[in-house]
């Protein structure tokens, strides 16, 4: 999917001849240290950033995106924010998604009336309700507390099962990657290279306090 990609900012080389293949319908977690180019990679996939060389071929698949911040329109209610990205057919699902995310009572609230976690939940609904094949997630839970983060990760997984999309999530949080990912792709410092790909076959409900997961965590920490 990504072939021989090169990207630099002024004199800093972020990626050089970087290639990555992914299958569809799975959750990929890209794990790497801060500043290794994870966000840049997602932005290039979403065409928000140009690259110097190489190619990104999504084979006609459409993309949705959960940003680090909620990026909701402050002058629109929760429901209007969601309606903005929906086709008429998808609008019917808004209430259902609000129900899943426990936001039904807030559909007519403005973003300023919501907490940080609630706003991020709205942005998750927006990303899922928008018809897409690949969902890009750029550390959307980093500013949230652990409990809320766990809850949202579970909700993301439920929604993923429902829509059967491909998720590429970037994070520097090992726990998050170990919970969410079907596969963990580990990136090095700049210029970003894949240093390992770890497939996790354990079902999500059995990942808590699992020996194999603890072993994988140890392994990742050694890098």
């Amino acid at each position, binding site marked *: 999917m990504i072939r021989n990609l090169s990207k630099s900012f002024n004199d800093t080389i972020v990626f050089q001849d970087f290639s990555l293949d992914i299958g569809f319908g799975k959750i990929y977690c890209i794990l790497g240290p801060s500043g290794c180019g994870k966000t840049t990679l997602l932005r290039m996939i979403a065409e928000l950033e140009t690259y110097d060389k190489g190619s990104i071929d999504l084979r006609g698949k459409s993309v949705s995106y959960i940003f680090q911040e909620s990026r909701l329109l402050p002058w629109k209610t929760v429901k209007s924010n969601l309606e903005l*990205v929906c086709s008429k057919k998808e609008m019917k699902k808004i209430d259902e998604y609000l129900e899943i995310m426990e936001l039904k009572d807030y559909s007519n609230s403005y973003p300023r009336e919501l907490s940080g976690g609630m706003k991020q939940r709205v942005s998750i609904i927006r990303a899922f309700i*928008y018809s897409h094949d690949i969902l890009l997630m750029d550390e959307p839970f980093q500013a949230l507390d652990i409990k809320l983060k766990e809850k949202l990760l579970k909700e993301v997984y439920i929604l993923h099962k429902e829509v059967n999309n491909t998720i590429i999530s970037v994070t520097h949080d090992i726990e998050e990657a170990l919970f969410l990912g079907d596969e963990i792709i580990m990136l090095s410092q700049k210029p970003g290279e894949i240093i390992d790909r770890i497939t996790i076959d354990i079902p999500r409900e059995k990942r808590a306090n699992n020996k194999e997961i603890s072993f994988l965590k140890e392994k990742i920490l050694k890098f």
Partner: protein
Amino acid sequence: MKDFIIRNKKITLLISIFIFIIIWQVLSMLFNPLIIPSPMETTKTLFILMYKREFWMDIIISMGRGLLGFLLAVIIGTPLGFFMGLREEIETFFHPFLVLAQTAPTVSWLILGWLWFGTGDGAAAIFIIFIIVIPFIIVNVMQGTKQLDISLMEMAKVYKLPLGKKIFHIYIPQIFPYFMAGCSIGSGLTWKGVAMAELLTARTGIGAAMGVARINLEIGQVFVWTGILVFLGHGFSKLVKHIEVTVTRKWW
């Protein structure tokens, strides 16, 4: 508490108007009525004028010219300011014209308007109002466009929002407060411009009527027309403010 403050504000305003009338009355007693007519005399002149058809016609004509000049400035200035804010090369291209409109003295435009459009139908007055107001609309809309939140534009790009949705739901709500600030300044200048332009370039309208009153030494009429211009300017500013508050409350 809020009611008390509002009531207090109204009382202060009434006291201020009352003191203004007292000072006016005292000054009219100190000077010749040809220089300062009393408030009572001015009111009498107002009532005399109100019975004349031309009085209302002059007000309607001036209002029409003021609104037309203002609307032309808004219609042309808004997209111009938007594209100047969006693309640097467009801003650079139009910059000299903007500087010219901003810095050339109004009196130069008055003379040019008079020479280009002549006197009579008020085209010169409309042109002058347009040229006075348009820089404020352009600069404010341009500023608003430059302040557009890039993160929201990226969101719109990712979700492939069509241009119409982008303009209506993302651009306009962000630019609107800046646009209204430009309109607010422009609305104040419109009525000053109307009177000044009509005085020198038109045969009808408030400014022209003030010119006739000056020649006939009808100082009371000058006072009446000044009061009407203040009323028009204040009313128009209030209307602009009302639109701003109503729409902003809906969006923000």
